[in-house]
């Protein structure tokens, strides 16, 4: 079975940077947001790696990534992501970050997907992260599905296999550290991924070069996408309190590390 796999994925500030919420004239933002390097949202990244794996096992499948963010940042991030696996980019030039409104974002993404030339809903698997690393609203993928009329939706997915008869077998995280396994007869479906089980692929420069031949034009003509700034108002934003005590160790058994952490928590 060949699928049209569409991965929704935005940008997130590199989580290693110093992040500090501030109030700007247009609402909450991050201090020095312009200067923060961005990465492809890690949750969406898992979805993308799983998409590549599925496409490899389902000949004829295609991968398209729909990404909303400032065009210059999208371009910068894609220079890294494009080296990991072959895909086509649909770039939407608009605001990114954690303070955008999920309803507006889902509309922009769904409209872009519906407008893909040759989009065939009957073959569509809409992938994304189960939440974003920037805010973690955890609702965008469901709303994208609703807007596209796709009602088979799976959240916090860790595994997808395709039965010989073409049915999708999906493992979702549920309460209590357990998984729920569902069987979906066929596409279309929305899969909002948790971590999956695949590592980040290493960079492959030739893949990057091949991708960029079509990505550069896509970025050049990225559709300007405005979101409704009045759609959401934030009363207050803050970072969670963090306590940091660092010690660098090497070759220490995991059990020893766990014991030390447990002792530290008990203090």
């Amino acid at each position: 079975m060949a699928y049209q796999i569409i991965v929704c994925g935005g940008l997130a500030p590199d989580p290693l940077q110093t992040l500090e919420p501030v109030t700007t004239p247009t609402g909450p933002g991050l201090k020095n947001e312009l200067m923060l390097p961005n990465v492809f949202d890690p949750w969406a990244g898992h979805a993308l790696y799983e998409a590549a794996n599925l496409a490899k096992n389902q000949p004829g499948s295609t991968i398209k990534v729909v990404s909303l963010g400032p065009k210059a940042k999208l371009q910068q991030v894609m220079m890294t992501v494009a080296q990991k696996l072959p895909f086509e980019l649909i770039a939407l030039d608009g605001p990114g970050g954690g303070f955008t409104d999920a309803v507006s974002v889902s509309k922009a993404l769904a409209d872009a997907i519906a407008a893909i030339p040759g989009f065939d809903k009957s073959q569509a698997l809409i992938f994304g992260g189960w939440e974003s690393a920037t805010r973690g609203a955890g609702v965008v993928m469901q709303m994208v599905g609703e807007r596209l009329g796709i009602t088979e939706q799976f959240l916090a997915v860790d595994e997808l296999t395709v039965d010989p008869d073409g049915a999708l077998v999906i493992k979702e995280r549920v309460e209590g550290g357990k998984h729920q396994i569902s069987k979906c007869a066929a596409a279309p479906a929305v899969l909002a991924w948790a971590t999956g089980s695949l590592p980040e692929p290493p960079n492959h420069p030739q893949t990057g070069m091949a991708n960029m031949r079509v990505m550069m034009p896509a970025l050049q003509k990225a559709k300007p996408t405005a979101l409704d700034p009045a759609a959401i108002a934030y009363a207050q934003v803050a970072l969670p309190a963090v306590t940091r005590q660092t010690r660098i160790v090497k070759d220490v058994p995991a059990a020893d590390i766990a014991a030390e952490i447990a002792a530290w928590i008990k203090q």
Partner: protein
Amino acid sequence: MNTDPIEQKPLDADIVCVGFGPATGGFLTTLTRGLETIDSRAMPGLPPQVLCYERADDISFGVSGVVTRARAIKASFPDLDTTEIPMAAPVRDEKLVYLLDPHGATRRPALMQFADKVIEALSGLLRVEHQGFAVPFCPDFLHKKDGFIFSLGQFNQWVGQQVMMTGLAQIWPSTPVSEPLIENGKVAGVVLAADGTEVRAELTVVGDGPIGPVGRRLDEIVGMPEGHKRDEWAVGMKMVVDLPEGVDLPEGTVFHTLGYPEPEIFGFFYVHPGRVASVGIFVPSWLESPVRTAYRYLQHFVQHPYIWRYLKGGRMRSWGAKSLLESGRRGEPQLAGDGFARIGEGSGSTNVLTGSGVDEAWLTGVQLAEGVLELYREGLPFTKENLEARYVARRRKSWLEAEGQIAEKARNGFQRGVLQGFLGMGLAGMTSGSLSVPRPAKDKTPGRLEDFYIGRLTRSQIDTIRLRCELESEPLHDALMDACGWPKIEYDGQILVSHQDALLMGGKVQAPSEFPDHVVIRNEHVCDDCGEKMCIEICSGEALHIAAEKPAGRPGFDREKCVHCGACLWNCVHENIDFCAAPGGLHSAEN
């Protein structure tokens, strides 16, 4: 799109650049402005295919807070508005400050100690405050008063985004280049470290800095010009700090410092917009100490009363280190050959008298791009002869060359002693290079511990410290500095943190798992007879360390801690270290 794996085959391009720093930024900025009307020679019908490969994981992960007159940068961007570039500001207030020694622990020559006493005695008259004497004038050759303060990472990001938005050049981060591709005695492109992909190009632009593997390999292949050597270096180490409440130094404030934490170590303090400051030091290769440690010295520097009054209560945002090639024009390699050209710091463009390198590097890139565009328009190939006529000749006629010649001998005196060094710089600066202190027949080299500490520590004290450090797998510098009277560092968890916390909180250092170790000890037996192991002492990230699991004293390497400063390369007196291409390193965009 087909998702099948892509077949491994050489990539074809017109121009391939190695390293994305200010030189390549200048090159690509200038080149892309003139490319639209030019046809690719590799892929006729298209514009020239221009690729740039950067080792670091993002184009903003450079390291250098920089104050620069920005003459060449301003020529490229006549309407430059610094508010477009985060952390950039015009220079407003610039001071040269002589720092007295608050602890009596530095190694000051007798004449300097006498000068200190005079300054202290006349402190009211000289307006000495917080043990710092602001020299009433900043020599003309040092000033940057019409220039800018930048974070190099942010500047690179700003330039890179503009270049890529033209669609005429691709800048690939996280893509180290292992070596040049040599065919029939010519450079035919590069080999990528990730998978050995050959990227073929008519022109290879080498801007991978002084420790870049491509530049170093080319030096081996084509040799250095007669009389040219790369034998003067420094480690620049800095932190970016959120200034505490109540400190209202205006953005654009610049201090250049000398005198502390050792007379040979210069320091800097720049105030960026948003109450953020860059503060750091340069530890030069002519510091004779065999236990050079930039991190410990940086901690003492930031605590000097003149600096600490502004930093106390602040918070480290970022930290980093890099090697600087301080040989200046004397370290200039073959600038062009068949199929290649060298630009930037690795091409010997840094001016060691004015302490300026970024703008000079930018200019070399601009000059090469102008030459390349001429050659394209005239349909001429990128031969050594043509590149020398269009690039090297341009460089020779420019202020870069004129000022490089003035600076060429300016630091000779430091090979004799610190006071002779200052005298030499002054002479060269004041006489436009006509006068200088002659270089001694034999350059200074780091002494043995026992010799360096004569009069301060006994041989038995050193033996005891050495044994203890070896048993505890610790470097020597902290124990030796403690024993010599340097106060211990009292961590505050904000600015004064352990070296490892600086890596995590400031440098955010990363090492991708799929690459092998990029620092390799060629022959470990050589290390057995090395008494000082300067590679360990200088290591900016404690990546090179005494390995408990190896025979006594042999270094181990943790690439997860390496910031890719390359200091191990020039500090191993046995030339027993290979420094290979690899991604990773610093993940801070603020350096």
